[in-house]
Structures are given as structure tokens and as C-alpha cells.
């Protein structure tokens, strides 16, 4: 559509005009017009892959359309910006939620308000009470069941009193009672004048709620119904479209094949108990609306996420259910989630193809290239894989050719059972045909084939039998050749299965909260105990230890490590990592030896400028390498180390240049034997700790560290928070460097290097996790204090330097290992 954008017909609500979006090989949306007026529920229905989610994401600002305009409440939104969309009053509840699982309900609510610069409502508890949610506000989200999380996601969006509300499959994980509650909330919001876009599979639910209904298929709008006078069958027909032009390979349903795969009382996380069987030569489908346990069952078959029940292959039970054992027993599993669990993206095609080939590659564990090539030539000819060379990395191929490589793997092995998840996801039409033929061929050779697909037409065309799943169980078995409409109807009408009571979630959340609070404090308690024991022991062995000068010295020596550890902790909370701190400290000392010969105002001014410049330049350089160029953080900061260290050496090839002696005096001033600077350090750590748990910035920092995607979805850009983290880390290193300068009194270019490893040891001891989000400033400071105590005590105890170093290492591994075990226990307690 090239015509000028017409004046939106409605002033408020959300309006999409002429929106198109395509991905390589797929046109997700073409020239779509869609609007939703205030005070109406506009339902959007379509099959999996019809473009609904793309449409929602474009409206929400997650994606930028290739063409077309989006306007929210009369204002046009230029490029995709989540924050702008949310600020204009468009809130989204995602099917897989934008909640940070490690944070509490309350924190997730607060995060949502903070991210768009709205004041937090004074009483979040009261705000939430309006929605009558079956869990307390201080529960950790990960302790909630999937249904409760989805309800929370919707309630959070509604709590902003949005002008427009996008609900993406809000009832997918809800049981009937919660679904009913949600319908009530949706009606209330509509009566308050909210424009609600409602995406759902469940047509009965849509009939009860929707004022208008739009059907989307293959990225094109197939019609909008203004009233709820429509007939379910008509809508299903619109969703499914005319009989597909695809031809499925002819199938002769075998009636006599022996059962090759049998599963009894099978259960695991998110599914079961259920039983099913597949005969040799049979293709059996698994269908269901997204998220009803289909994916988990298939993985359970090869031992990933399987907890109970029995698997028999050709009548022989599988003893230890593990992927390698399952393969040996004859079950080959191939996933359509290629990037996550199927292909080895940087590896050549031939390696990807022969992933399961085993001894066919050569005798005695050898892989003969000649045989690999032969396999590749055979497979590419047989299945029409188009590639320039067997050594091409698989990431360079189209989705269809990748999937053919994936499904050609079992043909090189002749399994007894072939389990395929989403055989044609992201695959073009032509390659689909080849893939269907591959599956049919396998069945013709007597293999039992089990296929899960979210594309019902595919199941209808391919399968001899279809199991329909609903909430983890088999709700229906469709015998014999079936039709797409029949499958779709079987799950659009699927009634809810009663979920296990909500009380369980509440109890477990209480236990977890207690455990959670404990486990986050374990490092602090452990370090405090260690410090005390160490101090008492040293004091009992040495008369010098408890004297004022020694303690003052100990605290002074803690300063550099303390400041730099706080900085490192900050960046690690956001998921960052900085190895260049040692070099930054050295450079700071060198700079001080040039700019700070005395504490005169001019020198001070000059020095402060130099220090700030160092922190900004180093931090920004790291941020560019890591955030923009996506260089691995370790490699990036090693490179920075080299450059910064080199600059320090250039400026001061030999030790020289005096640093104002007054600086040393200033640092040792304080209360009794405690230096003032140390009090400052403690105050800073405590202030940061309080800020981390009470402040907006601290919350954002943790949210980004735990879950960058969830953070992005509420409008808090993770890349910015992380870049700031790297600058703060460099700033901490500069502060540490100033403390070192006060100790050395002279400019040397290598004093900082020795602080790198202790800095990491300190933050890890303090409970930081490299995955981000976890950690404590007080913990990091205690870690620094403990390491300095070791430093201080070893000469007093006549312990050799080596023993100190060894103790460092051992304590680090033991401490971090036990924290991880405690954390994992807690994770297990949640039953995730």
C-alpha cells in the first residue's frame, strides 16, 4: 500500500496502518490494518505462526515494522521503542511474561513503574488487592506456578491503568478458576474504557469476551466480525484457510506393525502422567495449543526432564534414561528449535550431519573424512540439500536446508524410534515437502515416528494418529486420518483440567522465601565468622595484632581492595565483568604522581579531572567493546588491560614523581585507630547495599543482571545499564588507585596488577555470581576485609607467602562451591 496514511478513524486506542514485516524467507505480516477502540475487547485469532505475535510485538514497540505506521492514543510512534509505547499508555502482557523470576512480586511491579519514569503508587499491596491475586506480594516470582505468573503479568499491565492493553494468550497457563477470574478483570478494564487487544486460541472464551474478532492467517487479515454472532466452525475455517496446496506423501496406514515405542505412566516437569504407544511404520502426532507440555514430553523420552514412568523400545525397558542411553537403545531425537538444541552453528555441515553416526564413521573411535564425505554426498543427494561445500558452516544455510541436515542424521543410523519436535519450524514450503517425505520414508522403513508440531495442517496431512495434549496430559486421541479443522477444534474447545490447588504455591513460596533470604546472606555470615575466627586466632598467637597501629594498618590496606571490589560488584550485578581494574589502578597512581605533587587547589582540581577522565575513558572503552561490538567481556577487558597498562608504563617507565605526602596523612586521619577513609568506605558499601535493595537504580541493576530480556520488555534497556556498570567499575578502580597512591607515595606503573585476582576473590566470596543479579556490596567489602586480614596475619603468624596464596585459592573454590550448592538446593525446592 503506497497511499498516504489516512487520518486515524479513532482518536484513541491503538491503530496499525499498512504494517508489514518480513524475515529472511518468511513474510510475517503483509499490509495489515488493525485497530482497537477504547472500551472494547478486540480479539485476534489465528493459528500458530499466523503473525499474531509479530503484530503484538510491533504494537508494543519490541519490533520495528518494515513498512506502515503505529499510533497509540492518537500519537504516532516512529521506530519501535518499548519505553515510548508504554509511556503513551500501551501495556503488554506477554505469554511467556516479562517478569524477572528471581525478584519478588512487589519488586516486579515497582520495576515496571520505574522503567517508564512513573511514580510508584504509594501502596503496591493495596493496588494489587484490587486484582485479588492468590499469592502474597512478597513472594518470589519463581515460586509461583505458571498460572499465577501469567495472572500477575496481566495484573501488572492493568495496574498502570493503561489506555491500551495487549494480552497475548493470557489464559494459556490458567486453570478454569483463574481463567474465570481473569475474564472478570478483563471486563472491568474494558468498562473503565481500556482498549484491549486479546489474543487467544480458545474460541469459546473469545465469544464470551470479545466485542470484535479479527482472524489472521499467514500474515494477512482474513476478516473482522463485528458482533459475536459468528460460528466457531466458520472461524476455524478462516483460521485454517482453503485446503492447503501442499501435497503430503501418500500414507498407507499400517495395521499390523508391532509396537516399537511404549510409554507408561510417564511424568516429568510440566507433563504427565500419561501413556502412549507408537507402532513401527506409524507416524503419530502430538498436538495441542502452545505450552501444554508437548515439548517436555518429547524431551522426557530421551531422559531430559523425565521423572517417573517407564519407556519400552521393542518391548525392552530402558534402564537408565539418559540421552546417550536412549540413543543406544534406538531412540533418535531431533528438535526444530535449531539454535537452542539442535544444530552446532559454527560447525561444518558434515559435522552437523554426522552428530549421531558413531561407528559408521570409522573403526576404533576414528572418524574418516572419506566416509564422512560419502555420507554427506549420499544425504545431500537423497534429500536435496543445497550447499556449496560439506565444510560450509551450517549457520550459513537457510532454515529449510538446516532442518534437512538435522533430519538426515537419523537416516545415517537407522533408529528404532524417531522423535521429532517441530519438524518444519521456520522452513520454506519447498523444503517442507522434502521433510515430510523424509519422515514418511523413515516410517516406511519400519521406524516408529513421533512428531510434535504446532502446525495442525502438518499433523493432519502426515500422521496416522494424533494425541491431543492439554495441560500436560493427553486429553484426546484422534484415530485414523484426521483433518486440520478437527485437530484445531479439539484444542480450541479444550476445557480446563483442574490445576493442583493454589495453596501449595503459597506454602512453598513461604519456605523458599525463608531459604532465599538465608541463602543470600550466607556469604555475609560466613565471611563475618571467618574474619572473627581469623582475628581471634591471630590475636592469640601474636601480641602485635590487637595494637592500634597494626589495626590501623590493616584497615588502610583494605581500602584499595575495598573500593575496587565495590566497583567490580556493581558491574557484576548487571551481568558485566572487568579484568582491566588492575591496570586502571596503576594508571591512576601514575597520574597522581604527575598531577598531585601537593594538595594545593590547582593540583587537586587537575587531579580530579585526570581521575574522572581515566574512569570515563576506560569504562566507555570497555562498554563499546562489550556492548556495541559484542566482544567477550574477558577478552575485551584483557585488551583494555594491555592498552591502559601500556599507557601507564609510557607515562612512568621507572618509579618516580612524588605524590603529595599530605595524602598519606589525610588517609590515616580518623577516629581512634580507624582511618576516616575506611569509615567512608563502610558508609559507601552500606549505602550501596541499601540502594541496591530499596532504590530504583538498584532494582534496575538486579533486574538487568537476572533477566535482560524481561528488563528490556518493560522498557529498561539492559545495554545501557550494563554500560553504566562498566563505567562505575572503572570509577571504583580509580578510587582504589587513589588509595594505593596514598600508600606508595610514588608513581609506579605496576602496583595495580596485584589487585586483580584479590578483587575477584573478594566479590566472589561476597556472594557475587558471574551470571549477574546476585551479590552484595557489604559482602564484597567483607571479602576484601577478609583477604586483607589474611595478608596482615600471615607475617604475624610466620606463615609463608605461598600458604597464604594457597589458602586464598582453596577458600575461593570451597566458598563459591558451597554457595552454588545452597543456591541449587533452593532452586530445587522451587520445583523448577
Amino acid at each position, binding site marked *: 500500500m503506497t497511499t498516504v496514511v489516512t487520518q486515524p478513524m479513532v482518536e484513541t486506542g491503538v491503530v496499525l496502518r499498512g504494517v508489514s514485516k518480513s524475515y*529472511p524467507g518468511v513474510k*510475517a505480516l503483509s499490509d495489515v490494518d488493525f485497530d482497537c477502540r477504547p472500551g472494547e475487547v478486540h480479539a485476534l485469532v489465528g493459528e500458530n*505462526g499466523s503473525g*499474531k505475535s509479530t503484530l503484538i*510485538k510491533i504494537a508494543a514497540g519490541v519490533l520495528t515494522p518494515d513498512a506502515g505506521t503505529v499510533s497509540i492514543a492518537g500519537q504516532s510512534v516512529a521506530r519501535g521503542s518499548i519505553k515510548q509505547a508504554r509511556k503513551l499508555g500501551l501495556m503488554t502482557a506477554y*505469554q*511467556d511474561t516479562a517478569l524477572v523470576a528471581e525478584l519478588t512480586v512487589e519488586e516486579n511491579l515497582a520495576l515496571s513503574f520505574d522503567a517508564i519514569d512513573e511514580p510508584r503508587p504509594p501502596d503496591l499491596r493495596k493496588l494489587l488487592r484490587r486484582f485479588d491475586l492468590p499469592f502474597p506480594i512478597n513472594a518470589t516470582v519463581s515460586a509461583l506456578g505458571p498460572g499465577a505468573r501469567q495472572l500477575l503479568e496481566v495484573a501488572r499491565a492493568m495496574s498502570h491503568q493503561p489506555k491500551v492493553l495487549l494480552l497475548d494468550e493470557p489464559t494459556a497457563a490458567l486453570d478454569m478458576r483463574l481463567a474465570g477470574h481473569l475474564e472478570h478483570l478483563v471486563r472491568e478494564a474494558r468498562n473503565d474504557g481500556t482498549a484491549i487487544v486479546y489474543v487467544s486460541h480458545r474460541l469459546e472464551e473469545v465469544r464470551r469476551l470479545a466485542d470484535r474478532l479479527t482472524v489472521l492467517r499467514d500474515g494477512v487479515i482474513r476478516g473482522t466480525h463485528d458482533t459475536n454472532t459468528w460460528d466457531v466452525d466458520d472461524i476455524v475455517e478462516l483460521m485454517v484457510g482453503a485446503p492447503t496446496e501442499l501435497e503430503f506423501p501418500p500414507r498407507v496406514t499400517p495395521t499390523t506393525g508391532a509396537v516399537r515405542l511404549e510409554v507408561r505412566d510417564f511424568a516429568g516437569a510440566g507433563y504427565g502422567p500419561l501413556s502412549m504407544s507408537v507402532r513401527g511404520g506409524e507416524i503419530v502426532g502430538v498436538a495441542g495449543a502452545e505450552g501444554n507440555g508437548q515439548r517436555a514430553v518429547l524431551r522426557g523420552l530421551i531422559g531430559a526432564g523425565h521423572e517417573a514412568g517407564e519407556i519400552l523400545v521393542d518391548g525392552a525397558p530402558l534402564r537408565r534414561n539418559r540421552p*546417550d542411553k536412549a*540413543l543406544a537403545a534406538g531412540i533418535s531425537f531431533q528438535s526444530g*528449535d535449531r*539454535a*537452542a538444541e*539442535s544444530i552446532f*552453528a*559454527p*560447525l*561444518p555441515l558434515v559435522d552437523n550431519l554426522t*552428530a*549421531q553416526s558413531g561407528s559408521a564413521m*570409522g573403526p576404533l*573411535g*576414528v*572418524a574418516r573424512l572419506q566416509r564422512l564425505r560419502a555420507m554427506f554426498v549420499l544425504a545431500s543427494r537423497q534429500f536435496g540439500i543445497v550447499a556449496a561445500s560439506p*565444510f*560450509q558452516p551450517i*549457520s550459513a*544455510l*537457510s532454515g529449510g*536446508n*538446516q532442518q534437512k541436515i538435522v533430519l538426515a542424521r537419523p537416516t545415517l543410523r537407522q533408529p528404532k524410534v524417531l522423535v521429532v519436535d*517441530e519438524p518444519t*519450524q521456520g522452513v520454506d*514450503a*519447498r523444503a517442507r515437502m522434502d521433510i515430510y517425505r523424509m519422515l514418511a520414508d523413515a516410517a516406511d522403513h519400519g521406524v516408529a515416528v513421533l512428531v510434535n508440531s504446532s502446525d495442525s495442517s502438518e499433523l493432519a496431512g502426515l500422521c496416522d494418529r494424533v494425541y491431543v495434549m492439554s495441560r500436560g496430559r493427553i486429553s484426546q486421541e484422534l484415530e485414523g486420518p484426521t483433518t486440520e479443522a478437527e485437530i484445531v477444534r479439539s484444542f480450541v474447545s479444550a476445557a480446563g483440567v483442574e490445576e493442583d490447588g493454589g495453596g501449595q504455591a503459597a506454602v512453598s513460596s513461604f519456605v523458599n522465601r525463608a531459604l532465599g533470604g538465608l541463602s543470600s546472606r550466607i556469604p555475609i555470615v560466613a565471611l563475618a565468622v571467618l574474619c572473627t575466627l581469623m582475628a581471634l586466632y591471630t590475636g592469640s598467637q601474636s601480641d602485635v595484632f590487637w595494637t592500634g597501629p597494626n589495626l590501623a594498618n590493616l584497615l588502610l590496606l583494605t581500602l584499595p581492595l575495598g573500593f575496587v571490589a565495590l566497583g567490580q560488584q556493581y558491574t557484576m550485578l548487571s551481568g558485566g565483568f572487568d579484568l582491566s581494574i588492575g591496570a586502571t589502578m596503576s594508571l591512576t597512581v601514575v597520574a597522581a604522581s604527575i598531577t598531585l605533587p601537593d594538595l594545593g587547589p590547582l593540583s587537586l582540581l587537575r587531579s580530579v579531572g585526570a581521575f574522572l577522565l581515566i574512569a570515563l575513558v576506560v569504562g566507555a572503552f570497555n562498554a563499546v567493546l562489550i556492548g556495541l*561490538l559484542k566482544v567477550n567481556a*574477558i*577478552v*575485551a577487558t584483557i*585488551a*583494555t*588491560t594491555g592498552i591502559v*597498562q*601500556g*599507557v*601507564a*608504563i609510557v607515562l612512568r617507565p621507572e618509579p618516580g614523581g612524588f605524590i603529595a605526602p599530605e595524602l598519606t596523612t589525610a588517609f590515616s586521619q580518623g577516629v581512634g585507630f580507624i582511618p576516616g577513609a575506611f569509615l567512608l568506605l563502610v558508609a559507601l558499601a552500606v549505602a550501596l547495599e541499601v540502594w541496591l535493595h530499596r532504590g530504583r537504580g538498584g532494582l534496575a541493576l538486579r533486574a538487568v543482571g537476572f533477566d535482560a530480556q524481561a528488563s528490556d520488555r518493560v522498557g529498561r534497556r539492559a545495554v545501557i545499564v550494563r554500560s553504566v556498570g562498566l563505567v562505575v567499575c572503572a570509577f571504583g578502580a580509580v578510587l582504589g588507585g587513589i588509595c594505593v597512591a596514598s600508600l606508595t607515595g610514588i608513581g609506579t606503573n605496576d602496583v595495580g596488577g596485584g589487585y586483580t585476582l584479590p578483587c575477584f576473590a573478594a566479590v566472589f566470596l561476597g556472594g557475587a555470581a558471574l551470571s549477574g543479579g546476585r551479590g552484595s556490596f557489604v559482602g564484597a567489602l567483607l571479602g576484601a576485609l577478609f583477604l586483607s586480614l589474611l595478608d596482615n596475619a600471615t607475617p604475624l603468624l610466620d606463615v*609463608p*607467602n*605461598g*600458604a*597464604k*596464596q*594457597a*589458602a*586464598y*585459592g*582453596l577458600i*575461593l*573454590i570451597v566458598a*563459591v562451591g558451597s554457595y552454588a550448592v545452597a543456591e541449587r538446593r533452593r532452586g530445587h525446592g522451587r520445583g523448577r
Partner: protein
Amino acid sequence: MSQFATDLKYRLPARYLASWGALGVLLAVVVAVVPVALQPNGVRIVTALAAVLALASFGQMLIVMLGAIDLSVSSIVIVAAGMVVHYGTPGANLPLVILATLALGVAISLWNWLFISVLRLNSIIVTLGTLGLVTGGISIWTGVSFSESGLAPQAIQDFSDFSVLNVSACFLVAVAGGLILALTLSKTRAGRQVAAIGANRRAATLQGMRVTRVEFAAFAGAGVFYSVAGILVAGVVGTPDVSIGEPYQLLTITAIAIAGTTFNGGPASVAGILSACLFLQLLDQAMEIHGFSAGPRVVVRGIALVLAVAAITLSQFAFSRLRPSSAVPRALNEDNESSAPSLTPDTHQKETS
């Protein structure tokens, strides 16, 4: 283009050739500016030091291919040097000492494996702890200079001083070690699985590969390489002390990055690492002879690393938008193609339609 040429293009992608190119350019500059560096003695020193770095880097490469990182390299190098100096006194059974040294190196590396691969702790933390533990341990055990004389066994010194056409014998060891490594990684099934596990551990597991077993072998192999590097560097230096291994922690990572390896796990080039090590040592030597002080040398090395990783990253961006294994895979939501435009077709790709 013939099929052979096409295959070659993919088997030797540009990112693996970059370090060779850099080495070539550097050689040309050295010949023009500081030919002294290429005199017999200079070549001997550069090849000896490059060999030690290369052997240590081969070990690091195995760990990086698995998607982890090893910061404890230096400690294992120190232990190996310390072992041969401490026990390789005149009259000792040197082969036995060397064997014990290799065994200890393997044991330390397997300690890392236990925590990283079996207990699934972060490799940085684990190897940082191992670094302290082992470095401290060896200096208690043998003292800072390893023995009273502090001398490496004469046989090892003689071996390190030996050269063929001015190429140090150490370099021949490195080439042989590299050859064995390259053959293992390409000609054995377990070897081929190393890159697969590093590229996508979950996929490797689901495909039925014995992931922890392969990782065990890779860590053990890394221990052997580190130990050989330590034994040889003791011979090269003659009187090593506990600071001997220190540079190898960051230098191995630098060499691997310049050799075009991504740190997300996956394939790597043995030959590329060898050339990157030659490049780094020759660069250092030439700058030193030319009168550069330590500062600029360190800066230049840092800039070389930034240029290398930036170039590799940028070329990857141009090549494919996919960055797997760096992010935790999320459950696929419907309309999968919208959330993860998974793999963009390459220009070489001929569409089937």
C-alpha cells in the same frame, strides 16, 4: 570455482588466516626495519619462546573450544617447571620425573574439570581458585626458586638449546604437539565432539554425545600441554622461579583471540594459534631490539588484540546475525520466526526455490 577450491575456502576461513597475514606483514616490516631480529640467535629465541607459548595456548584452546576459559594455565606451567627443577637433580631418573610432572599437570587440570564440567561451576571462578591454590602450594613445597641450585636439569637445558637450522628444538616439539592435537580434533570422533559440545552443549547432550567424558579428555589433554610448556620453559630459561608462568595467563588468551577463535565455544585453528604465537613473540622481540621500552610494547600488544577481536566480531556480524550459546535459550514462543530470526542465509547459499 572447483569443488576443491570451494572446500578449501570453508576449511580455512578468513578469520583463521588473519594471524598468518599479520605474521607475514610483521616479517616484512622486521626485515626492513630491524633485520637484526632475524639473525640466527634472534630466530632461536623467538622460536623457543613462541613454542612454549604455543604449547600452553594449545591447552587453553581445548578449554576455550569447550566454551570455558582457564586462568590457571600459569600455575600448571609453574608446577611443571618446578617439578623438573626440584626433582630433576643430577643423578635422578629424568624420564620418570617428566612422567610424574605430566601426571601432576593432568591431575590439576582434572581438578578444574571436576568443578567446571561435573559440578557446573563457572570456569573463571574455579580456575582463579586453582591458580591461587597451586601457585601457593608449589612455592611452599619447593620454595620460590624450586631447588637449592635453581637449575633446570642439564638434559632439558641442552634440549632447549638445541636447534635445527636456527629453529629451536622446542619449536619442533610445539609443531609435533600441534599436529597431534589437530589430528585428534579432526580424525577422531571424540575429538570432533569437542567443538560440538562447545558450540552447543545442550544439543550435544540431546544428540546422545557423552559430554562429560569428552570434556574429561579435553581437560586432561590441556594438562599435558601446559606441563610440556612448563618443562620446556624451564630449559629455555635455565633457572626458572615461581614467576615464570605468570605471563601465560593472559598471553594464551591473547594468542587464541588473534588466531580467530571466538570465545563462545566451537572450532579453533591449531595452525592459526602457532602463527599467532610466532607473531606475538616476534613483535615483542623486534620492538625490544628497535629500542621500544616496555610501555609501548604492551600498548601495541593490547591494540593488536583489540584489532583482532573487533575484526572477527565485525566480520561475524556481516556474516550472520545469529549469536548462539551466548544467551540462555528461552522457550520458543509461538511465531517463532519473529522472536528469533534464526539464521540468515549466506550469499553463497542458493535457495531451493
